[in-house]
């Protein structure tokens, strides 16, 4: 099967600092991949390079056959790559509906003139539907995101990632700030995405989560891939050894 996402020797330098020193892996459609590594191993840099926030210094990133090097973040999203950031990347003074459609507001012509205005009614309608489909308890899509609780805000971030039929969803520490019961909801979401054939990259420190939902695990250390194993064929101790560099 052709991979959905393929990284070939991706490198990223910030001035003299080399954050990524050659990362290669491939991801199949519907596959759930764990991206592991200690703080500073290069996980965030790698994800931001995939989503186009950073531009790779060398190497190739192919997504569904397209080379992402020439794409900006908006174009990469349009190809079907979504990321849920750890800080959620929400505009707190905008309402729920606006956040869900951020960067992709549908427009309509104003009074038939060649003036394009944001189609507010459609945004609210579709945001409402998405929130309901996710079963999220957000009182109204007109609430300002800054007025919502942390869990509700995460629901908004998730809704934003899922509204436009993504092919790959990257989640950065989605369970780090949640209570035990809420964690189970996130893991169930990951399984549901897999059932729908959507690939997931899960960045997490919690190995129990990884072993619960992931097919494969990749370990980064000092900007390199040091391990790429099938979760069913490895153990937590082996993974930990890779992470800390004792393996």
């Amino acid at each position, binding site marked *: 099967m052709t991979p959905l996402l393929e990284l070939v020797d991706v490198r990223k330098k910030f001035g003299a600092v080399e954050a990524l020193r050659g990362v290669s892996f491939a991801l199949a459609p519907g596959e759930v991949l764990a991206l592991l590594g200690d703080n500073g191993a290069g996980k965030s840099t790698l994800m931001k390079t995939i989503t186009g926030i950073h531009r790779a210094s060398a190497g190739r990133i192919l997504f569904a056959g397209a080379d992402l090097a020439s794409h900006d973040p908006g174009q990469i999203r349009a190809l079907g790559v979504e990321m849920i950031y750890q800080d959620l990347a929400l*505009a707190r003074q905008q309402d729920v509906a606006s956040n869900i459609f*951020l960067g992709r507001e549908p427009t309509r012509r*104003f009074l038939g003139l060649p003036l394009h205005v944001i189609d507010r009614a459609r945004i609210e309608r579709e945001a409402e539907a998405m929130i309901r489909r996710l079963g999220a308890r957000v*009182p109204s899509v*007109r609430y300002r995101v800054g007025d919502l609780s942390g869990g509700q805000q995460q629901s908004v971030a998730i809704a934003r990632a899922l509204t436009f039929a993504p092919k790959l969803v990257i989640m950065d520490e989605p369970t780090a700030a949640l209570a035990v019961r809420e964690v189970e909801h996130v893991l169930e979401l990951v399984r549901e995405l897999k059932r729908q054939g959507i690939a997931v990259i899960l960045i997490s420190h919690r190995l129990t989560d990884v072993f619960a939902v992931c097919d494969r695990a990749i370990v980064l250390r000092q900007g390199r891939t040091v391990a790429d194993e099938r979760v069913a064929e490895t153990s937590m101790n082996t993974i930990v050894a890779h992470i800390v560099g004792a393996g």
Partner: protein
Amino acid sequence: MVPSEAGAVAAPRRGLSWRDLGGAIRLESLVVLVLLCLALSLLSPYFLSVANALNILLATSVIGILGFASTFVIASAGIDLSLGSVLGFGGVVGALAVNVLGLPWPFGIVLGLAAGAFCGLINGLLVALAGIPAFIVTLGMLGVARGAALVLTGGQPIYGLPAPLVWLGQGRPFGVPVPAILFLALAAVTHFLLSRTRFGKYALVIGDNENAARATGIHVARLRIGLYTLSGLLAGLAGLLFAARVNSGDPTAGISYELTAITAAILGGSNLFGGRASVVGTLIGALIMGVLQNGLNLLAVSSFYQQMAIGSVLVLAVWLDQWNRSRGRA
């Protein structure tokens, strides 16, 4: 299937805001404006009339248009300190074009606007691409644009504009001053731009959370350049109106107007730290200052008391806002 909230969800409070007018109107501003009008109606028999209302609109037009410019920039968590100087520069360029170069009057308008937009474009390029803080860039432009206006004119006002340009500042079709018409029309256009288009929405999002804007594919640099160019363009327009009103391109026109413009935006409920801004709010903020100034003139209040009154109203409006917010939290 998604994390639903564990405990009961406390319904978050929506601040006193008037959603359909851009979601950022402070009712407090409107209350202050209405109270001010009531008080002045009682204090002066000349205040409450159509003619005086038109006078207020005329007097507020230049500052108000600069206020709209600063509303966009403030929305994006930026600041434009060069507005007053760019106003002076735009007016001078327009006056020079028709008066010294002898070009037909439409060129005066086009060149005046272009001069303003050019200053704004340079501000935008330096902020967005060179990454210099807006405060520094526009402070520099404050000096450069003012200096350029003085150099171009040798420090002397360019007196005498062609009749169509003067009409722009002094005409009264159906008894309504042209600057007042332009002022209200621009309020409608810029309100539309800020509240209904992607350009306006993204300006607010950049000011709210720049990382979120980048992550969702918004072209932050391009948008910033657009915002500062718009700001300069509006300042150039205000400069042309100023020049038309006094029939001369004055290189010292608009000194310190940027501060009044920013004050109007803040009075109207815009957040100086970005993410929340409203043109209608700024319109109300500018009118508060215009009405107050008009009232003080009608009452012939001496200069020292005028400064005290203006300062007091500013503090009152902001205090009302804070009081309302803290009550909401409790």
